[in-house]
């Protein structure tokens, strides 16, 4: 079997194996180490010796054997360190009743909840989710997050230590906590996805792998919770945005705004899949922010050009989104949509309301949007000032160069 095939299979099985072992032994920390070692052993042996009859059982057996060794070593060390306070048998004993043999998707879900536990920092949540649910090695995570391998190792071990210290059980959160805990999982996936788009010069390709990994994990979550509308909404959103990635950059590496993208290069299959997901959940409700953002992305993806976009519908969707969350970036996008639907002056009127909001009035994006709308309204001088203000506030060279080009273009047209 080819290396790539083995890798793909291993990543799919990783959360199932870890779930099974953690459930049986009740020790997430060591179960995670043991699973990583089993995955490494498989990555070495399978491409050479061929696939075992049941890859999943093979991995669980190897991980369980390794875990037994680790537990013995751990206990021996503890006996040396502390002969008085013995371990309570519960930690290495059988799982509590009612938790036997749940489906594999359930294990995956429990892993998501554990890795995205609110007591962990966002950076740890992302690293641990990539490792435990995604089955990525430390080196792969380091590459994807642009972090040093040492840093990733520390983040993961610190996260596992906090899980151990806080005594969080390997089980579904109680029903009352479920919505809040699911929100945390969705936020981690969304952060991971966006991180993939925070491209630094020369790293674009590596980062897109991270966005693709977020989508893969989004699929796993959707498989575990097929009836949750926001889970579907987030998966749809990621698919609908990622569908445009090939058209986002020019051959010279510069970014292309959506209005100027070659839409024939958008990924039709991803768009169809995203639209199918959102079409099922939107009428069903309850409507949440991920579904609304996915619906907006879908309207863009379906339009043959920027001018032929259904801006009235996008305006309405942003209006609903604004009602759900007081977010100045959403308000900015809403103003753009209004300007596209009814003219630049209406958009500028909305922007003037944001001009006193300290969360956004110092932001490059606010000034760039204002400049664009001023230009469309025919006020060239004010537009030039606003572009200059945006360029002054931009901290990214790529964005500064884009704004400089707008300034040169306006100077040239005067």
């Amino acid at each position: 079997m080819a290396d790539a095939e083995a890798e793909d299979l291993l990543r799919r099985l990783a959360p199932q194996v870890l779930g099974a072992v953690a459930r049986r032994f009740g020790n997430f920390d060591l179960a995670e180490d043991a699973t990583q070692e089993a995955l490494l052993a498989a990555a070495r042996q399978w491409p050479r010796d061929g696939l075992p009859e049941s890859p999943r059982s093979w991995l669980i057996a190897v991980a369980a054997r390794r875990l037994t060794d680790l537990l013995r070593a751990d206990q021996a060390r503890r006996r040396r360190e502390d002969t008085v306070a013995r371990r309570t048998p519960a930690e290495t004993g059988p799982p509590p009743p009612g938790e036997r043999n749940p489906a594999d998707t359930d294990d995956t879900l429990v892993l998501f909840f554990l890795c995205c536990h609110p007591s962990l920092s966002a950076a740890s949540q992302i690293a641990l989710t990539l490792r435990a649910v995604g089955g990525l090695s430390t080196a792969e995570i380091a590459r994807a997050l642009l972090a040093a391998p040492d840093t990733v190792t520390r983040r993961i071990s610190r996260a596992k230590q906090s899980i151990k210290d806080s005594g969080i059980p390997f089980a579904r959160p109680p029903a009352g906590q479920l919505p809040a805990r699911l929100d945390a999982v969705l936020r981690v996936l969304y952060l991971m996805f966006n991180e993939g788009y925070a491209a630094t010069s020369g790293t674009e390709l590596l980062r897109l792998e991270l966005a693709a990994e977020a989508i893969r994990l989004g699929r796993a979550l959707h498989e575990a919770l097929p009836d949750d509308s926001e889970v579907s909404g987030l998966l749809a959103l990621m698919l609908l945005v990622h569908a445009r990635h090939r058209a986002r950059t020019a051959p010279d590496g510069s970014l292309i705004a959506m209005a100027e993208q070659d839409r024939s290069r958008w990924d039709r299959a991803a768009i169809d899949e995203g639209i199918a997901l959102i079409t099922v959940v939107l009428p069903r409700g309850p409507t949440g922010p991920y579904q609304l953002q996915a619906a907006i992305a879908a309207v863009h993806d379906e339009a043959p050009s920027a001018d032929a976009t259904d801006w009235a519908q996008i305006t309405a969707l942003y209006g609903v989104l604004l009602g759900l969350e007081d977010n100045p970036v959403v308000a900015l996008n809403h103003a753009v949509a209004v300007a596209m639907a009814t003219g630049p002056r209406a958009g500028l009127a909305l922007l003037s309301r944001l001009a006193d909001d300290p969360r956004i009035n110092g932001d490059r994006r606010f000034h760039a949007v204002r400049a664009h709308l001023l230009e469309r309204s025919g006020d060239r001088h004010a537009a030039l000032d606003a572009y200059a203000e945006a360029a002054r506030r931009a901290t990214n060279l790529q964005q500064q160069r884009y704004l400089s080009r707008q300034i040169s273009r306006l100077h040239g047209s005067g």
Partner: protein
Amino acid sequence: MKYMILTYASQQEYQELAGQPPEQRAWTQEDWAALGAFMQAFNAELADSGELVETRGLSAPVHARRVQLSEGVPVVTDGPYAEAEEVLAGYWIVECASFDRATEIASRLASCPGPEHVRARAYADVRPVDEHQPEFEG
């Protein structure tokens, strides 16, 4: 051993890089694209050889803040550098066999494309990272 490779630029040079002012000294789109392609290949090669620990570029010095004690109280100054003052612009941390190997890596930056006046004055420093090996590790 780890080594840090450092490059420098002034606010003025950052502005040229950003295409401001749009006069003759600004980097053209071709210059910019060549720089991006060079850096991408340079970083990918270091990542593939396993020597790259981390690399970052810093935003223009005008965005810097300086924190300094003034009469015993920390005081913040925005954009503390003079227009032509050279400041840290970016760095690589590499882990490699020898100081000479790190220097060899840094020397390859000399073939980084760019306008002639920039190439004429550009330089990179290589400095060993002061690493303390722990006495014991579990």
